[in-house]
């Protein structure tokens, strides 16, 4: 397990820190501190993947986040298989297992590579044009084939076992990017006393100082300064230094999303520890120190493994101590690749040739290269490369004609210049400006409180970048309102032999218009210079159209290395200057973000609050089956002795009407309406009259929306002249309170009344049935329960089981009934006491299903089940609940609309099936004539339907056109296996005279 390309004299890694890993099952060794990419290169492995469309062999292009080619799967265990990991950012750990993607049967021999031979067919717009006809083939042939072939990597097939975390954070100054400029800005801002967050995507900050070995800051080598500065910042109380943290999104009002990777670099992560943490940072000022990204040269066959960015070759050499080849060729259109050639040469790597597209490059770099004996071929271009799985020859020709040369090389490093990383700036809605002199887009007009510094701002010299960053950091602190006056801006002497320039963009000679060459612009989506031109030829004018037609820049790297090339080629074809062609929109995330990070803690039990009543534990212990009602868990039914739902509900229904039943109604919404104008407010919010409701009495209230339709209902008790205890449906509790509060604040602000939610103050225990008074009586103190003293629809305050209680005499079953409200913490204990008393009378506990059946037997509606937002009180048979003398309430004018007063509206009726055993399906449609041709005219639908044990037959409620005038009519419910005949009947099925409330 040697590392033949690791140079003993280069790099910063400790040669003793050997780490082993596998790639496609083959064991290799690397060093602690390696990325997967650097470790592979140390072992001479350049071929790491196959391209998306043509399955061309691909290697490692970069040494950073912009990597389009070297995407691999990382397989930790069967549940942890992460696809499309960039080998250039994956830190190596002992035992790491990486697999290549998009190849079959093997990376070196891939059947899919036949696509490459068919490349002429797969050009831009291929999918749009080819899979159009015949139409029928789409579903059965094209789509399955495309789906199988599309996409890179394999999605994991098991639930993600990892944990993810979330933190909100606030700061005065957020610095994104921890290169020289970012560190300097953070230094200045924190010096001034600002609360600073500095985020850097690497394990160690330093940015391009990683490879720029000519840099000196504050008298130290650049990298050394960066590490010391990072340590210094981390030690400050007012600085939070986040490494392995990518600023991926810039949102409104200086809210940024950062993802911190916590365990992906560890061999044996603590299973309790989160894998990633999402930081949602609200910053007063943002300093964008995001650097620049080097572009490759666009020339024929520029995608062979072994061809990479010049800066990447330097990073592998100067930081990781890895030579990317033994005999390296260089192809450039700007100065920065010279440094790569010089560094490699100085470390003993042979430079086959330095091909410079410029006719007469000049400067210290050029002189130094020549002095080192590097052959500089000025005015030359690389016209092609050779080598099946790795470049082994580079074909070179003078730009102005002349004899071509074939140069042997096992690596080719290229640079066409640097693109400022303006992604976050653009996401912030800042306007980019095209700089004619340097031919690049730079931050122009800011719309948020941000500033760009360093290479990302087009500031190329190290000294200038640091000066700019120090100044910006101090200013940001000041603008954030940090008052510390000692704000001494640190002074850092910095300099570098480096010079970054904008270079050239677009296709180089050999890939000009008319050439058939495969000169790749976008590696990840396999888009060539020819594809861009074809898009323009076929009529695409906007860069947005070119992008979508060719898919350039649409891969997971979002065209970090390719966008400017594509834009330049399109602008040449269109004969328009670049700014007129425009730039595609930068959108978050800057680099791919896992769903896990976005979901954070919100999984499983924490996905949504689960609300349980104080009595929940008792119901659970007594075998209740629960149903979800909004966020609540409600006991649905209580099966005993192996009962199924049907049997349990039938028994519960029988028992309530024979003796009594006990029901947990705690989830009912409760609102206390208090103030001298409480009754006036109630008059306005409900259809009913309230002014004359006596203290101690209750009324069933209906609330409408402005449009006249039923919004909610519930029983309201008057506790005092100025105090009402309002109940709402369980699901309606929050919205009814908001509805009331909304009207109070906007329409009736003059009323002296306040609303307080008391839903959870009270546990509510309903005791219903002929024995209910006998059960409740022994527990009650200070309340006369006689029918004379406490008639149906009344409320009293007193004590139950020795604790303060509000006792309602109300019934949702039609039986004599009480609802005991006690402070919630006493709910369980009081329930147990009621249960014990109930036992003496043969009472049962019942759930929501029985509650539904019993109320349907009595024709009591459930808002949201028997109403759907288009039902008026009259439609529901509740016209009696409208105060006829009232001149105002919410919805009164809506009720007068012609449509709402028209005859023949759908009205609530009862339905009886002719076969009493047949239970209709809720939601089933109703027709008058089952023999009419399809489509039939539907005249209504079933809203509630149950087996009624007490009636000995099925019962149903339905909304039917002109229903109240159809009593006795026969209608039909068409179902899959024939129509069911029903009779229209009144909505009350049981105890029509209502005698049982006093029974």
């Amino acid at each position, binding site marked *: 397990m040697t590392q033949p390309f690791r140079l003993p004299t280069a790099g910063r890694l400790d040669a003793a820190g050997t780490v082993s890993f596998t790639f496609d099952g083959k064991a290799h060794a690397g060093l602690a501190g390696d990325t997967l990419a650097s470790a592979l290169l140390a072992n001479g492995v350049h071929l790491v993947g196959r391209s998306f469309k043509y399955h061309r062999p691909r290697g490692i292009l970069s040494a950073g986040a912009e990597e389009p080619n070297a995407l691999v799967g990382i397989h930790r265990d069967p549940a942890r298989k992460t696809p499309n990991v960039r080998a250039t950012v994956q830190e190596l750990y002992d035992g790491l297992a990486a697999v290549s993607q998009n190849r079959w049967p093997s990376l070196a021999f891939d059947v899919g590579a036949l696509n490459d031979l068919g490349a002429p067919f797969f050009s831009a717009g291929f999918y749009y044009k080819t899979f159009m006809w015949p139409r029928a083939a789409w579903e059965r042939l094209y789509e399955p084939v495309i789906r199988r072939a599309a996409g890179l990597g394999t999605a994991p097939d098991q639930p993600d076992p990892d944990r993810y975390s979330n933190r*909100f954070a606030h700061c005065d100054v957020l610095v994104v990017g921890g290169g020289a400029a970012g560190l300097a800005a953070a230094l200045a801002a924190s010096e001034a006393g600002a609360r600073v967050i500095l985020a850097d995507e690497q394990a160690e900050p330093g940015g391009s100082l990683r490879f720029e070995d000519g840099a000196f800051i504050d008298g130290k080598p650049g990298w050394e300064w960066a590490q010391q500065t990072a340590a210094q910042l981390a030690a400050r109380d007012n600085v939070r230094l986040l490494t392995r943290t990518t600023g991926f999104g810039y949102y409104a009002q200086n809210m940024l999303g950062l993802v911190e990777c916590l365990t992906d670099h560890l061999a044996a992560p603590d299973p*309790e520890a989160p894998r990633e943490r999402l930081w*949602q940072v*609200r910053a007063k000022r943002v300093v964008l120190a995001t650097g620049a990204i080097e572009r490759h040269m666009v020339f024929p066959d520029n995608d062979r493994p072994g061809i990479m960015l010049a800066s990447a070759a330097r990073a592998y050499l100067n930081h990781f101590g890895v030579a990317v080849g033994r005999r390296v060729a260089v192809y450039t259109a700007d100065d920065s690749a010279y440094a790569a050639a010089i560094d490699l040469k100085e470390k003993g790597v042979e430079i086959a040739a330095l091909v410079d597209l410029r006719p007469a490059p000049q400067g210290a770099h050029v002189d130094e290269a020549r002095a080192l004996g590097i052959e500089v071929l000025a005015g030359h271009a690389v016209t092609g490369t050779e080598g099946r799985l790795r470049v082994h020859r580079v074909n070179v020709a003078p730009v102005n004609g002349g004899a071509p040369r074939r140069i042997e090389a096992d690596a080719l490093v290229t640079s066409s210049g640097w693109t400022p990383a303006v992604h976050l700036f653009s996401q912030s809605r800042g306007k980019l400006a095209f700089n004619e002199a340097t031919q690049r887009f730079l931050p122009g007009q800011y719309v948020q409180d941000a500033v760009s510094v360093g290479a990302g701002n087009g500031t190329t010299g190290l000294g200038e970048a640091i000066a700019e960053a120090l100044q910006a950091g101090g200013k940001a602190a000041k603008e954030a309102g940090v008052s510390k006056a000692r704000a001494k801006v640190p002074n850092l002497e910095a300099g570098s032999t480096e010079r970054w320039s904008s270079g050239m963009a677009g296709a180089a000679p050999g890939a000009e218009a008319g050439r058939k060459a495969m000169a790749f612009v976008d590696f990840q989506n396999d888009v060539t210079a020819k594809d861009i031109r074809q898009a323009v030829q076929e009529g695409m004018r906007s860069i947005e159209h070119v992008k979508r037609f060719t898919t350039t820049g649409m891969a997971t790297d979002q065209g970090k290395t390719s966008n400017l090339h594509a834009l330049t080629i399109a602008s040449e074809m269109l004969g328009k200057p670049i700014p007129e062609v425009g730039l595609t929109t930068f959108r978050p995330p800057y680099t791919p973000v896992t769903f896990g990070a976005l979901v954070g803690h919100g999984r499983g039990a924490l996905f949504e609050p689960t609300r349980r009543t104080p009595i929940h534990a008792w119901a659970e212990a007594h075998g209740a089956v629960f149903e979800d009602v909004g966020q609540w868990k409600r006991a649905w039914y209580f099966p005993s002795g192996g009962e199924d739902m049907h049997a349990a509900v039938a028994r519960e229904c029988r028992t309530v009407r024979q003796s009594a039943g006990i029901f947990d109604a705690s989830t009912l919404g409760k609102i206390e309406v208090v*103030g*001298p104008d409480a009754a006036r407010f109630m008059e306005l919010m409900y259809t009913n009259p309230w002014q004359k409701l006596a203290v101690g009495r209750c009324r069933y209230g209906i609330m409408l929306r402005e449009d006249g339709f039923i919004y909610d209902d519930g029983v309201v008790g008057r506790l005092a002249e100025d105090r009402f205890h309002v109940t709402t449906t369980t699901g309606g509790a929050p919205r009814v309170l908001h509805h009331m509060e909304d009207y109070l604040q906007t329409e009736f602000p003059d009323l*002296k009344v306040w609303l307080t939610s008391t839903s959870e103050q009270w546990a509510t225990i309903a005791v219903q049935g002929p024995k209910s008074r006998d059960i409740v009586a022994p527990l009650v103190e200070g309340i006369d329960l006689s029918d004379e003293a406490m008639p149906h629809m009344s409320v009293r305050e007193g004590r139950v089981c020795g604790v303060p209680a509000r006792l309602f005499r109300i019934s949702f079953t039609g039986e004599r009934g009480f609802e005991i409200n006690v402070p919630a913490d006493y709910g369980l204990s009081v329930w147990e006491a009621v249960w014990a008393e109930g036992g003496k009378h043969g009472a049962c506990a019942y759930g929501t299903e029985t509650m539904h059946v019993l109320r349907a037997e009595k024709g009591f509606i459930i808002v949201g089940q028997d109403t759907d937002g288009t039902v008026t009180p009259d439609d529901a048979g509740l016209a009696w609940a409208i105060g006829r003398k009232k001149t105002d309430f919410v919805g009164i004018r809506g009720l007068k609309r012609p449509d709402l007063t028209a005859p023949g509206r759908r009205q609530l009726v009862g339905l009886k099936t002719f076969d009493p055993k047949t239970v209709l399906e809720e939601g089933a449609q109703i027709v008058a004539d089952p023999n009419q041709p399809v489509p039939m005219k539907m005249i209504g639908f079933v809203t509630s339907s149950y087996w009624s044990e007490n009636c000995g037959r099925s019962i149903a409620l339905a909304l039917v056109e002109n229903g109240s005038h159809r009593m006795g009519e026969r209608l039909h419910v068409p179902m899959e296996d024939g129509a069911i005949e029903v009779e229209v009947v009144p909505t009350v099925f049981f105890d029509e005279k209502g005698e049982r409330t006093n029974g």
Partner: protein
Amino acid sequence: MAEIARRMSALEGRAYEGPGIALTPDPPASRLSLRAPEASLSALSKALGLTLPDKPKTAAADGSRAALWLGPDEWLVIDEECADLAALCASVSALHSAVDISHRNTAILVTGERAEDVLGAGCPQDLSPTRFPVGAASRTVFGKAEIVLWRIGEEAFRIECWRSFSDYVFSLLEKAAREA
């Protein structure tokens, strides 16, 4: 006569302690949702024995009793010794609404040097001591639950949430606390 009902809090038996963090359900307290116009404040303050605060994000505390400003006409009054707050206000004739919510809310104390960090897992507010000093109080959210947050010490916060949300709030706090 039946025996007196037992009190059972929503977070009975829950507690968590880890390095730099402790999560402790607070014992029962009495609570009042108090609503009143400005003109009634002096009378109510006198009845309650503390000056109702009139500035956003503030609270007034005296002994076992505190009033947290929740809105221009709204306070959450808490008495840790379970004094009958509604009775105190009943004697006040000045316009107001006092509703007992002693059992609606439940309290969780978040204490320790990591308290701020753990709350940051679900609360989007700036909780640094300069923006949310000791004594600051605010109605806010924690994850998907509404809470009232009150800083009772440099490294101590009291969360008030509705009873049925307390399991969610406690569980999310514990999840964040275990991440250290």
